[in-house]
């Protein structure tokens, strides 16, 4: 229960919790605390808050709380929308592969037709968009377009080690890996355009390795997407 004595001594609780009360005050409070569980509980709560205070640097936020750039919300919404689209595309591709297994021969012919159709429009086509699953802070997206020299890859990547070098690869339908080229990691997000000498219709996998031949990004391409 809260008595007048409690009310009177409450203000001292803050000073005691912070360790800066007069000895006389502290003594008076101690006498009260022995008989008052409520004030003891309150002192415990305030003391643990006081213990957390030294972690903070109050001058850091002198100008108030930092606000994220206004565009960040839009970017988050856009990014998740991309991810949803990629997931739906992957589902459709899985569905297509199931159908393909059921009617392998028919689809082989169809794929040849699709490949023909895809190669013809060239770089003016909207392209196949791939969003890579993030791995240890590296995130990336790519747009693949059929070009005369092979598959043109517009590659957006961030989170790579600044200064390290990387390879971008495509794997063809025959399982061979074809390099699209090498590039250096940069601190800032980077946009690159590279070409691999494999027709888009034959490309099955897009991946990135680092200088130690470790795979840092890896996605399957929808079959004959």
């Amino acid at each position, binding site marked *: 229960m809260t008595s007048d004595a409690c009310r009177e001594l409450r203000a001292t609780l803050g000073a005691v919790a*912070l360790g800066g009360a007069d000895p006389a005050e502290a003594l008076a409070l101690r006498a009260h605390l022995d008989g008052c569980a409520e004030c003891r509980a309150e002192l415990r709560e305030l003391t643990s808050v006081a213990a957390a205070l030294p972690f903070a640097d109050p001058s850091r936020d002198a100008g108030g709380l930092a606000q994220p750039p206004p565009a960040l*919300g839009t970017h*988050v919404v856009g990014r998740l929308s991309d991810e949803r689209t990629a997931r739906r595309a992957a589902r459709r591709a899985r569905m297509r592969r199931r159908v393909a297994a059921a009617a392998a021969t028919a689809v082989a012919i169809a794929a040849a037709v699709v490949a023909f159709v895809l190669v013809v429009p060239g770089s003016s086509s909207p392209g196949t968009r791939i969003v890579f699953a993030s791995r240890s*802070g590296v995130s990336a997206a790519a747009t693949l377009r059929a070009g005369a020299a092979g598959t043109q890859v517009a590659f957006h990547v961030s989170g790579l080690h600044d200064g390290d070098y990387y390879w971008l690869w495509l794997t063809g339908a025959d399982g061979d890996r074809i390099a699209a080229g090498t590039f250096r990691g940069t601190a800032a997000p980077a946009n690159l355009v590279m070409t691999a000498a494999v027709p888009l219709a034959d490309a099955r996998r897009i991946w990135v390795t680092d200088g130690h031949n470790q795979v840092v990004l890896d996605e399957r391409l929808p079959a004959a997407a």
Partner: protein
Amino acid sequence: MDTARPVLANDDGVRAVYAAHGPELYRFALRSLGDRGLAEEAVQETFVRAWQAANRFDDALGSLRTWLFAIVRNVVIDLSRARAVRPALASGSGMNEPIVLDDDVERVLIAWQVEEALQKLSAEHRDALVEVHYRARPYHDVARELGVPVGTVKSRVYYALKAMRLALEELGWSDDV
């Protein structure tokens, strides 16, 4: 049924969750990574992972905020490892002090929570606490400077600590050590 998947399943849902938690996630990431660009990246990555793992979110086990902060903590660790950077809290101030260790992330989390809670105090309460605690000034001096009785300064400090406690609890702080 999970809660976050429907919440993050469309643009409006993402917007709502971002409005509620985005700025806090950003400030924590900025506090941890010391770089605005990386902090933005961390927030985006946090939402992507939250969406990907949404079926593992159990509303019964805690709030969406708690869950998002568990994710952003890992994202911060991953991002700082990806950049192979030095521990942060070693040197005192300013930006560009990213971190690596889990312990450091915990400490930055508490530091961020305390700083955020301080900002939520009224100016009177915050000033009293900053003068008395962080600047270690005697109550009498602070009272004289503000032109109020010593008892008033003490009571402001008391109410500041109580308000801090509430604000910290809202931010997911817990003192069960």
